[in-house]
């Protein structure tokens, strides 16, 4: 009961203080807001990057072309040799007839030309469609397959994948760095806000001490104040996440840059994200105020 009363007292005090020093509070709330918005944006970015790079990695298919003259047995040997490699996830065979049929059915013009080819005249090649388990090791796999006998060509959109992987890695690193820097700046600002509150309430604190308030009671309002600042600072970022991401998602119809890259569905993604942001606001506010209290409230 007594504890509850004290917490109630501290909370009331903390709220009063937030509004009494409103310009000051507003400054740190703004800072928390900016930080959290940027944190949210980088989280959205990296979550999506993580998401579609995973998709792309799963979807990357290399096409292995077999020499035209290869016999059925030789083709079978190639199949077994590829299958025995480490990094192979799936392996499908597509004969040149199947390729031909596919091409014919996809296009009128191709159809008219190809329909005149007999089975022996078909200049297309038998192919294997291969997907790998680990895209980072795709180069080794490609080299091994290339060195097989009767393999003509291995094609896997090399450059684009390499580029995407490096870009994703850079984005991830930059956003992690930005988040760390921003959190540090915000904590610093909260420490200073609470420090000023402590100074502006020196008289009150000394009277509290005089009439026998415990250290816990004296410190509590400031820690609560930090938490309240964090909470108030997370309101806008949460709204921005929920409405912003939803509208971005609808605007791009769930896709970004190319149809290959799909965005994460907003529900429940935005709610998880909001929870993380609110939690982060609270934690950052608490760390800041706790440090300020420790450093500037000599009781």
């Amino acid at each position, binding site marked *: 009961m*007594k*504890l509850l*009363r*004290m917490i109630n*007292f501290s909370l009331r005090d903390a709220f009063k203080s937030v509004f009494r020093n409103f310009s000051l509070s507003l400054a740190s709330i703004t800072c928390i807001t900016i930080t959290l918005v940027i944190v949210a944006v980088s989280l959205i970015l990296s979550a999506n990057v993580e998401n579609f790079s995973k998709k792309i990695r799963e979807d990357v298919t290399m096409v292995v072309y077999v020499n035209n003259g290869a016999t059925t047995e030789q083709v079978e040997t190639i199949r077994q040799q590829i299958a025995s490699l480490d990094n192979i996830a799936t392996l499908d065979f597509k004969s040149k007839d199947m390729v031909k049929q596919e091409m014919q059915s996809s296009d009128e013009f191709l159809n008219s030309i190809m329909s005149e080819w007999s089975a022996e005249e078909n200049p297309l090649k038998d192919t294997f469609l291969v997907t790998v388990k680990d895209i980072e090791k795709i180069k080794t796999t490609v080299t091994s397959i290339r060195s097989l006998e009767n393999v003509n060509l291995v094609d896997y959109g090399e450059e684009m994948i390499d580029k995407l992987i490096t870009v994703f890695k850079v984005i991830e690193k930059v956003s992690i760095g930005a988040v760390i820097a921003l959190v540090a700046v915000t904590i610093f600002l909260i420490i200073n806000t609470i420090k000023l509150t402590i100074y502006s309430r020196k*008289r*009150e604190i*000394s*009277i*509290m*001490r*005089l*009439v*026998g*308030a*415990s*250290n816990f*009671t*004296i410190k509590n309002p400031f820690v609560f104040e930090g938490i309240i600042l964090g909470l108030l600072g997370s309101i806008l970022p949460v709204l921005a996440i929920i409405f912003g991401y939803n509208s971005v998602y609808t605007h791009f119809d769930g896709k970004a840059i190319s149809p290959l890259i799909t965005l994460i569905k907003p529900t429940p993604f935005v709610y998880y994200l909001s929870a993380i942001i609110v939690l982060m606001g609270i934690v950052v506010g608490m760390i800041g105020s706790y440090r300020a209290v420790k450093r500037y409230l000599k*009781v």
Partner: protein
Amino acid sequence: MYMEFICINDVTKQYKNGVTAIYDLNLKIKKGDFAFIIGGSGSGKSTLIKMLYREEKPTRGEIVVGGLNVAKLRNSKVYKIRRKLGIVFQDYRLLPKSNVYENVAFALEVIGAKKTEIRTKTLKALELVGLKGKVRDYPDQLSGGEQQRVAIARAIVNSPKLLLCDEPTGNLDPEMSMEIMRVLENINKTLGTTIIMATHDKEIVNKMKKRVIVLKEGRLINDYEKGKYDDEAIKND
């Protein structure tokens, strides 16, 4: 157990800057006593009072207040002694943005008292100092004497056994000072609160005829029962 309410044994206080404010002080004060501490400027009156409420720690010696060894109290435990006593200063130390009622209630709020308890105790304390009609006024709407009575009400609201006053009439004219003394005397008589008051005010000391403890340059030089202001002792040579 100590028979006396306050026991000061061989206390010496040297400040960090090397100034020794109190030398080898031995003093006992009984429950319900009313004692003045007088002495010239810098004689150590405030230092003695500060040690009693553990604002300062004695460099040497022992101070026991109501069974609590104040000298040994750690910083985080200081609230224990503060809840046993009330303190009044020359400069009132009120919260300017809170009204009379809030100022007094504050002392109970911060120690976690119940709301109903806060209300009855606060009103009772304000009645005792004669300010029941001014509960909604703010400090800047009150005279110096009234502000000091608010401070006294705040000091006694938690029914402490001891009331420390450091020149409570220092900023008041003689008439208001006597008003404050009547309030303090009343508290001493009706509540049995032990009162220790440091003062410069000769007239008050002479009129009250209470115990007078005389300090000179940090040393106890006289201790009169029903004394009066000791001009001779105060005089600077």
